[in-house]
């Protein structure tokens, strides 16, 4: 190809060549992988998954109870839950949701409301132990709070879904963004929302603190000096959420979501109820966000309105884009990758590098720049994401035009 080209090859050509080579390599590797797969016994897949799950369980035993890596890991796992939730809405159903922080906030506030002395006039105790069993306020068992948050968030998810039903693409993004902002402003100004008798809705930027430690009858109370139980708790939650996601993907509902994402007009003409199907996506995504919010609230032991920023929604969205929109394993990989970079690599490993060069700043101040750069890198080199969805892979090789997709008149 360089024969007709005069002069030395442009740098862009080198990059192009690299990309071509990388693609060729992937094809060869894929071929080999398929060949290896054929020779393996039939059960290998499930055995591999079982080993992987077991490895996840024993992982914290290799780290100390207060290890920074373990802390980063369990926070990352909480983000995996968020990413899996957002992936249902954005990845499966194609509804661009920029207000996901709302469900983190609602989940975390559920933890605060139902697991602290915040409602100081109440004396409700359900399946709790230690101080929590005697203190004033509402104190529910952690599992009950999880369930409550999941239910409340799924209802809120439907609420945000309703006004977006007639909208598409960018317009959905604007409405959901506004919803996220409403919730975060509510969190800040909740101090002025009186519920009677001096009780307010939130405690704003002062925060609600000393949230109950998770307690499980038979296992006992958690303790922040021991991180392993927290890890196991979020790990089990991740496995459950993962299971639900995998089941949904290959189900009647999962197919309906993808169909709506691909072509709404064709989907409703094939008998898919638009409103119900979209609302289910919103509510499931929201429920996962809420569950993760409860866990993070309990882990941080306080809920402060400063935690809930618009950038959080973008952070989770970046995870599923880097991983590959619509891909479950992509969401897992993207969430782990970005949150490890954010909570471990930047602050604990490379933070002081500028100082080694005589520069007076920490890399944490540049973290958004680093993320932006990574996102651009992924978009240029691998627009389908690190672990693309199988269905999207089918599509990217060819393109189908879905014009006049503005056809449906939603009337409900």
């Amino acid at each position, binding site marked *: 190809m360089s024969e007709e080209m005069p002069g030395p090859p442009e740098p862009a050509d080198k990059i192009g060549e690299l990309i071509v080579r990388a693609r060729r390599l992937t094809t060869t590797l894929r071929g080999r992988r398929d060949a290896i797969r054929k020779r393996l016994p039939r059960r290998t897949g499930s055995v591999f998954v079982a080993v992987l799950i077991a490895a996840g369980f024993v992982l914290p035993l290799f780290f100390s109870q207060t290890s920074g890596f373990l802390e980063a890991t369990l926070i990352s796992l909480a983000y995996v839950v968020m990413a899996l939730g957002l992936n249902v809405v954005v990845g499966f159903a194609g509804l661009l949701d920029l207000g996901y922080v709302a469900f983190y906030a609602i989940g975390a506030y559920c933890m605060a409301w139902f697991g602290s002395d915040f409602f100081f006039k109440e004396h409700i105790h359900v399946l709790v132990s230690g101080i929590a069993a005697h203190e004033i306020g509402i104190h529910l068992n952690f599992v009950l709070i999880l369930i409550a948050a999941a239910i409340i968030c799924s209802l809120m998810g439907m609420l945000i879904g309703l006004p977006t039903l007639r909208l598409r693409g960018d317009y959905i993004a604007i409405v959901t963004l506004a919803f996220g902002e409403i919730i975060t402003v509510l969190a800040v100004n909740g101090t002025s929302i009186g519920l009677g008798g001096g009780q307010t809705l939130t405690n704003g930027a002062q925060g609600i603190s000393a949230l109950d430690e998770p307690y499980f009858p038979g296992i006992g109370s958690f303790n922040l000096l021991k991180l392993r139980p927290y890890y196991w708790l979020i790990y089990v939650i991740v496995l459950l959420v993962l299971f639900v996601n995998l089941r949904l993907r290959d*189900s009647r509902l999962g197919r*309906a979501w993808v*169909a709506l994402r691909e072509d709404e007009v064709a989907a*409703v003409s094939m008998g898919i109820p638009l409103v119900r199907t979209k609302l289910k996506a919103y509510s499931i995504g929201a429920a996962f966000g809420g569950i993760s919010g409860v866990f993070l609230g309990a882990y941080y032991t306080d809920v402060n309105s400063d935690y809930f920023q618009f950038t959080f929604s973008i952070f989770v969205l970046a995870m599923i884009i880097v991983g590959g929109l619509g891909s479950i394993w992509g969401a897992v990989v993207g969430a782990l990758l970005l949150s490890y970079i954010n909570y471990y690599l930047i602050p604990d490993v490379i933070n002081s590098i500028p100082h080694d060069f005589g520069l007076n700043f920490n890399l944490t101040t540049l973290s958004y720049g680093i993320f932006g750069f990574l996102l651009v890198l992924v978009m240029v080199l691998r627009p389908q994401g690190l672990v693309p969805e199988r269905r999207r892979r089918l*599509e990217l090789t060819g393109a189908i035009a879905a014009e006049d997709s503005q056809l449906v008149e939603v009337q*409900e």
Partner: protein
Amino acid sequence: MTVDAPALTSERLVLRTEHVTKEFGGLVAVSDVSFELPSRSIVSLIGPNGAGKTTLFNMLTGLYKPTSGRIVLGERNITRARPDVITSLGVARTFQNIRLFGAMSALENVMIGRHSRMRAGLFGSIVRPPWVRREEREVRDRAAELLDYVGVRQSQFGQGAAQLSYGDQRRVEIARALASEPTVLLLDEPTAGMNPQESQALTDFMRKLRDELTLTILLIEHDMKVVMGVSERVTVLDHGEKIAEGPPAEVRASPRVIEAYLGKDPTDPPPTT
């Protein structure tokens, strides 16, 4: 009354419109159209571009709600019913510009068509009890059967819909429509882009569909050879109005139809009626 062309009144009607009008702002796309679809017939809807044929289709399938008038399916008024409800009541369609789900395989596309005949909800999808497993298996098998029935080769079942050949995409779209077990099948220009042999094959296939699956077929068609060859009745729209209706030969001879297609002969005297 001959055996070949039974009178309409003796037939059961599956679908009819009564004075249906659709306006977009000031534009009247379909104006006061009444027509009937007798059970197990093949009816063509023809007319020049912009005559309102596809708009009428979109009203029949619930994508548009008529500005006025009624649409009745069997005994049921479906004028304002949602598209998915109409599909579950037994009306399925294909699109003029093929609208398959590009990110899904041919098989999955057809499985989507079966959505309204499945029961698994949120809970069933997650827990996947035995009846859901059975349902999934049956739907998969049925989708494969249908693909086979419309003539898609087995090697193409797992292909992404966007990568299929044009002919296969048309076939998959018909299979997807059939998957919802319709009683009425609406085909929007099914032979567009086909050569004469393919058109002929599709014409034969429509008859086969009607006879084997006891379907009623309404098609929008521009290819007059197909229209004259396959349809028992033809309805002609022009500027949103029904200008003729009847057996193909009769419609073809109608001066108004000729005028709509070829334009008015300026030397003609103005019509006296």
